[in-house]
């Protein structure tokens, strides 16, 4: 393939996926400027490696998200957040909109905290699957792990999330999840 053709393919793939990748980065990094900077790094890095771009558009999309996952992971590692407030605000750029959802905001906060508390390899799998809409097989490709490993990790992540979300929160006056009490039938 000529350089011009490769460049054209890259431009097409980038144009098709840039908005989604920007959304992914914005959700993961929280800050719009950080997300824009990361997006720039993703495209720049991908362009530098565009000779590795898979010819199939779907495979190319997963490859681009793999680059994005690497870039955001590097940025994410560089952050140390000691403040729960800051962490919540940075991980949730639209905190003001959450009351419109079906569950109370504290329950949604609890779920986000539980995802954040997962080991990184589990949390990213959950986010890619539930937030970015990738199948586990696709997420496995993005994270460069075997599909079987992804399935195992995903199952482990769900177990951990259940354990975390059902545990009482000693530091809050209200329960982690909305709990309704009723008289048992037996």
């Amino acid at each position, binding site marked *: 393939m000529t350089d011009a053709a490769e460049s054209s393919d890259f431009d097409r793939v980038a144009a098709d996926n840039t908005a989604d990748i920007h959304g992914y980065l914005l959700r993961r990094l929280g800050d719009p400027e950080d997300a824009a900077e990361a997006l720039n790094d993703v495209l720049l890095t991908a362009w530098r490696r565009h000779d590795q771009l898979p010819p199939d558009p779907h495979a190319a999309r997963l490859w681009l998200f793999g680059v994005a996952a*690497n870039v955001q992971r590097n940025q994410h590692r560089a952050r140390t957040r000691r403040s729960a407030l800051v962490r919540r605000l940075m991980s949730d750029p639209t905190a003001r909109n959450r009351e419109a959802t079906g569950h109370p905001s504290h329950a949604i906060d609890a779920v986000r905290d539980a995802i954040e508390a997962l080991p990184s390899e589990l949390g990213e799998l959950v986010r890619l699957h539930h937030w970015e809409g990738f199948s586990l097989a696709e997420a496995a490709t993005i994270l460069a792990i075997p599909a079987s490993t992804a399935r195992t990790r995903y199952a482990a992540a769900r177990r951990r999330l259940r354990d975390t979300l059902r545990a009482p929160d000693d530091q809050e006056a209200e329960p982690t999840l909305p709990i309704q*009490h009723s008289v048992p039938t037996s």
Partner: protein
Amino acid sequence: MAGQVGGATTDQGSPIVIDDDTLDALLAEARPEITHDSECEACARTAGARAEQRARWPRRVAIAGAAGAVVLSVGAGAAATVGLPFIDHSAPVEHTQTVSNGDQCYATYRFVADGRRPDPASLAAAQAALAGLDIDSLDISDDITYVTDEYADADWSGPGPRPDFFYPADSLDSVEAQALSRAVYDAVVTEVRTQGLRNRGFSMETEWKCDDFETAITGD
């Protein structure tokens, strides 16, 4: 009595079961809805800059730096009655750090109010302490050990989908940049405490760019 979450009910005091549907719904609802404008201004800006970046790529590789951000907080605290200092030290402090391999990290440090009950006096004291701090004189050896240990288990590796698939590595420069930010924070907190103030109600924000970012991202 029984606790009920989603479709499952258990005796009170027993673990509450969250069924698959409830967990799926919660995970879906937890997805942050971004304020992503339809034009995706950032995307357009990035796409527009890409052609220029291609032309400048070799130079970009040479000057690219590590980017990172740190927020160190001491949490919320009660408001103090001590008045604010007259001089405003709220501006970020810029600092260039030469790390052990000769690379440079360009950092900014800033103390800002944080927590549900910010403490203006402590914040002002922290900002003043930062403004007067000799950052180059700080010993960061213990902080390097701390940061290295803290991030050791964050390193990720695994089989790639293709032999030439690249993996990111933590920026080595960033380790020292983070270590320095910890040392700056600790020095400022020590000074705040020396003044009899409480180290709460403020946080330190740090951003840095280091010379080895590109190699850390690409794995070259």
